Each structure stands twice: as structure tokens, then as C-alpha cells.
């Protein structure tokens, strides 16, 4: 039997959803135009006024917003509610220098938690379930989002946060966890640990919600088999609210976007032109109910496909595919967003040339990021400890910038492969994206 958190909304008619979206979009555009000078400026530049926006068919008239806008307006520039009405912030994962801070009113938190409650319900969770949340708690939205969703549902919530596998497994077995929430790589690790320790017949898990990083169907099958559960995907971004922007249902055939809160579009990342549903494009979200930090037409850089076809679960909200790649060069390593430009900055600050290669691999469930750097006469010395010491400094500086440990490998000059004079900066050997290894460059919509 399919579980819903709010069936009237989740299974609303298309007419009803459109009516909500029209009304909320018009109101939201008015709010940001009148309360956020940056939006007013951007709209004025395009000659768009709130009265031009009558509903979702006018969405394309509005300017899009990118991460650069968010950084530019850090920290308060995009706020649409007074700070005194805000109750919380969250921030994007470990990306110093590119940090984005999102603000929430109590209402924002409530609606976000409802979105997560819908995701949990779709995975079969009810008030009788035990939900173990091992996403990180803190600035990261993963822990707080699923935690709040579990509360809204009335499930018993285990606020474990990430790490400490012994303790995770102890609570999982002793308290009979039925729903697991964590990153897919950690789920794979827990699955291995459960089986290595012979705990399979002592766990009561029935489902898991795994998001915050890309994972493949193979990984899904492995986790499902290893833990004897059904594994569900969930999608979200801190900028938009956090996990629960879209979630999978029992059909496991795309993630339903919570369309009463978010309008989703696909656009051609190069031209910005709308891409019809059913075709690959960059996912763009508009938050129509957020009060504190509403983003209008926020470009995620995630490439995906939207599906309108009716879903067997009974939900009517549009489905999005798993992200199939990025329209920029962002990598997600160990759940952390990594931009090659950040690595470049660190290299130059440390005196190395900006000629480097990033190699990402995955062994079992753990990601490894190696940064290969070419040796230069300036950085060379006959003293091994001097060269090794500089290498160590680089490792620390990368850790400080990215929040994760990178393996640094010094290589001979000119050894980093260049094609057409330009070095290929990133080699991601994980093949996380189903359709192609490098969809952003092979996808016609991206060109």
C-alpha cells in the first residue's frame, strides 16, 4: 500500500497544482521585487515588472539566478524577510570561499520538514517507524531536513549524525531501526559492515533514503540486496531548502518534485532557452513558498530530465530523473562540493603552477581524490624534506579550502596530458552518471 504524508497535495489534479503555482509565483515575484533590491535591479534591467507575471507561463520572462549571484550577495543580499523573523541558517558543504548561507523563517523550516516527511512517507515510513538519521547534523541540511521530516511524521527519530559506525550499528540493532537516512556511499559502507559482522538477521530495516551525492543503479541494487531493503533517492539543495525538493516513490522511476513549493524547469545551459519535458536540460528551481530566502529561477547546474507521465504511485507531481551530470565542472566527492577552480586557487597560493589534474576514484563505497601537480624548478630542492614539507603544506591548504583530505602527487613537468594544448583537469573514474560519463559535453542540450 502506498503511504502519503499529505495525499490531498501529493495527488492533487494538474489544474490544482497549476493554480497553486500561478497564485504563489505572482505573490512571490511581488514580494522579492518589493523587498530585495537585487531582484528589483535584475528585473528592471530586463524590463520585467511584477505586473507582467500572471502565472507560470510568464516564468521565462524572469531573470535566472546563479551561484555567483548568491556569492555576490552574501550574506544578506537576497533576504526577503527581516532578520528578526529568521530562526535558522544552513550552509553549503565545506566550500570555503564559495560558501552559500540560506536563511529560514519558522514557516520555511515547517514547509521544508513537510517535504521531507513526504519523502519518508513515500519510502513507507509511518509514525510506528524508527528512523535513523545518519546524515551530518549542523550547517549541512541533510541531518536537519530528514530529522524534521521524521518528527512531522511522528516516527521515532534517532539523531545519529554521520560517522561512528560501531554506534550506528549498535543502535540499528538494539532499537530496531526500520528506515535509514544517509548518503548512498555511507549506506553501502553500512551494508558491508552489517554483512561482515553477521548482523543481517538482527536488523529490521525496510527502507532507506539516500541522497546528497550521485549514485548509480548498480549501487542501489547492491545496497538493497546487502541490507534487504528498498533504497530511495532524494534530491535537494541548500539554496532551495535542502533535501526533499524532490523524492522517489515506490515506483522508483524518477523523483517527484514538490511542485506546490517549487516550480521546476529545464533549460538549455548554453542559451537559457526552455527545454521541453522529456529532454535533457539544466534543472532550474523557483521557490514559491519560501519567506526568508526565496530564489527565483535558480540554476542548479544539474542536468536532468522532467517526466509528466502519470506515476503508478498515484502522485501527480512532475518527476525528475537522477541528475545526469553537471553543466559546470563541480564534483561531489565524499558528499562535498568541489570546484576545480578552488584547487587551482590553493595551488597558486602555495606557489605551484596552475597545471594540475584531479583524479577521482571510488573503491567500494569510499571516494578518493588525488591532485596531481607538476614539479617546477622554483618548488624543487635537493632536500627531500623540503620538497615533502611543501607537499604537506599543500595537503593542509587543500583540506582547509575543501574540507576533505586530498592525496597530492607531485609529477614530472609536462607530464599532465594535454589535448589540443589544453589539459584535461578532471578525470572522474567513478562513472556515477548513468547515461554517459561526461553528459555535459555530449548532451546536445548542453552545446
Amino acid at each position, binding site marked *: 500500500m502506498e503511504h502519503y504524508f499529505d495525499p490531498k497535495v501529493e495527488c492533487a489534479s494538474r489544474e490544482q497544482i497549476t493554480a497553486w503555482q500561478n497564485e504563489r509565483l505572482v505573490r512571490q515575484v511581488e514580494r522579492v521585487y518589493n523587498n530585495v533590491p537585487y531582484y528589483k535591479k535584475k528585473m528592471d534591467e530586463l524590463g520585467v515588472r511584477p505586473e507582467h507575471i500572471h502565472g507560470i507561463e510568464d516564468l521565462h520572462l524572469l531573470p535566472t539566478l546563479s551561484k555567483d549571484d548568491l556569492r555576490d550577495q552574501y550574506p544578506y543580499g537576497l533576504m526577503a524577510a527581516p532578520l528578526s523573523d529568521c530562526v535558522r541558517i544552513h550552509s553549503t558543504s565545506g566550500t570555503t570561499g564559495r560558501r552559500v548561507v540560506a536563511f529560514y523563517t519558522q514557516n520555511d523550516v515547517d514547509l521544508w520538514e513537510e517535504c521531507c516527511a513526504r519523502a519518508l512517507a513515500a519510502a513507507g515510513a509511518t509514525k510506528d517507524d524508527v528512523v535513523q538519521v545518519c546524515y551530518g547534523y549542523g550547517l549541512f541540511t541533510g541531518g536537519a531536513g530528514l530529522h524534521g521530516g521524521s518528527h512531522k511524521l511522528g516516527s521515532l527519530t534517532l539523531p545519529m549524525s554521520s560517522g561512528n559506525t560501531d554506534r550506528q550499528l549498535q543502535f540499528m540493532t538494539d532499537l530496531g531501526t526500520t528506515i535509514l537516512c544517509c548518503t548512498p556511499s555511507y549506506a553501502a559502507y553500512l551494508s558491508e559492515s552489517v554483512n561482515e559482522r553477521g548482523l543481517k538477521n538482527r536488523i529490521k530495516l525496510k527502507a532507506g533514503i539516500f541522497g546528497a551525492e550521485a549514485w548509480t543503479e548498480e549501487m542501489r541494487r547492491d545496497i538493497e540486496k546487502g541490507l534487504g531493503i528498498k533504497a530511495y533517492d532524494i534530491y535537494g539543495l541548500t539554496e532551495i531548502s535542502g533535501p526533499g525538493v524532490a523524492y522517489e516513490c515506490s515506483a522508483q522511476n524518477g523523483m517527484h518534485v514538490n511542485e506546490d513549493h517549487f516550480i521546476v524547469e529545464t533549460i538549455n545551459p548554453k542559451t537559457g532557452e526552455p527545454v521541453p519535458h522529456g529532454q535533457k536540460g539544466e534543472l532550474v528551481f523557483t521557490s514559491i513558498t519560501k519567506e526568508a530566502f526565496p530564489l527565483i529561477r535558480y540554476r542548479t547546474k544539474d542536468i536532468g530530465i522532467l517526466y509528466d507521465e502519470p506515476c503508478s504511485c498515484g502522485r501527480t507531481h512532475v518527476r525528475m530523473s537522477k541528475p545526469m551530470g553537471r553543466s559546470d565542472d563541480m564534483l561531489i566527492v565524499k558528499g562535498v562540493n568541489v570546484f576545480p577552480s578552488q584547487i587551482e586557487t590553493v595551488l597558486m597560493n602555495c606557489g605551484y603552477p596552475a597545471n594540475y589534474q584531479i583524479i577521482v576514484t571510488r573503491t567500494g563505497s569510499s571516494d578518493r581524490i588525488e591532485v596531481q601537480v607538476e614539479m617546477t*624548478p622554483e618548488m*624543487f*630542492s*635537493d*632536500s627531500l624534506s623540503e620538497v615533502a614539507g611543501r607537499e604537506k603544506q599543500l595537503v593542509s591548504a587543500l583540506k582547509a579550502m575543501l574540507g576533505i583530505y586530498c592525496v597530492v*602527487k*607531485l609529477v*614530472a*613537468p609536462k*607530464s599532465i596530458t594535454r589535448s589540443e594544448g589544453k589539459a584535461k583537469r578532471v578525470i572522474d573514474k567513478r562513472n556515477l552518471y548513468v547515461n554517459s560519463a561526461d553528459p555535459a559535453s555530449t548532451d546536445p542540450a548542453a552545446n
Partner: protein
Amino acid sequence: MTVKQISVFLENRPGALAEFTKILEKSNIDLRALSLAESEDFGIVRVIVDNPFDTIQILKDEGYVCSITKVIAVEIEDKPGALVNMLNILGDNKVNLEYSYAFLAKKANSAFMVFRVADNDKAIRVLTENGIRPICHEDMEQLFK
């Protein structure tokens, strides 16, 4: 009274040293001494050759990162205890060794030590005061005739 050593950056992978020595062979460069230091991901090969200036140019042309360092080379008697004596002189005078290696020449009953120190002048003074004359590059060539 120093000897010119060439230090070369090498990747830590099979064949890296072979490729390097191949270049020396091709250019007819004679190795007098060689020492290798390695870390997890790279190595530094230190060599003393017959013609350091030509060698460094050849290596640079081949794309190697390398540098010339002045090191101290001394002759010691090839018998047990000879090295201790030498090291005691340096140690007692607070000369810290960064690294050191040995080589042999064509001279019977003699061994040679190379010392890399922070302050060459001080090391030379200390050694000279104790009756030991460090070898210069011209002496080196005589040793291999």
C-alpha cells in the same frame, strides 16, 4: 673546495630511474656518484658527474626539473672506524648533516664521503683545521683517471 652535485626530480614509478640514466648514456655522461632519496610519490636522485654544467643543460632540455648544489666530498681511509672519526669532527663542531652518501674511485684503499650541510664554509673550516682537505671538482676528475 666543494663538489657540484646535480639533484633531479623523479616520479616514483617503475622505469623512471632507467629513463633518466638512459639520457646520461645517450649523452655520454659519466657518473661519479649516485644517491637516491624517495618519498611516497616522488624521488630525488643526486648525482656527481664529470661535466655538471653540460649535464644540467641536457637534463633541462629533456624536461627534467633539476638543480646544482655544492656539496662537500672528503677522502677517508677504507678501513673500519675511519667514518666515525670524520663524523666526530663534524659532530663535535655542531655541523649538521642534511644527507650524506659514499662513493668509490679508482684509488686503492680510499673511500669517499659526500656531505650536504647548511653551511659549507664552516664545514670546510672545521675539516681543514683537523687536517682534512675537502676535494674540489678538479680533484674529482683525477680520481677517475
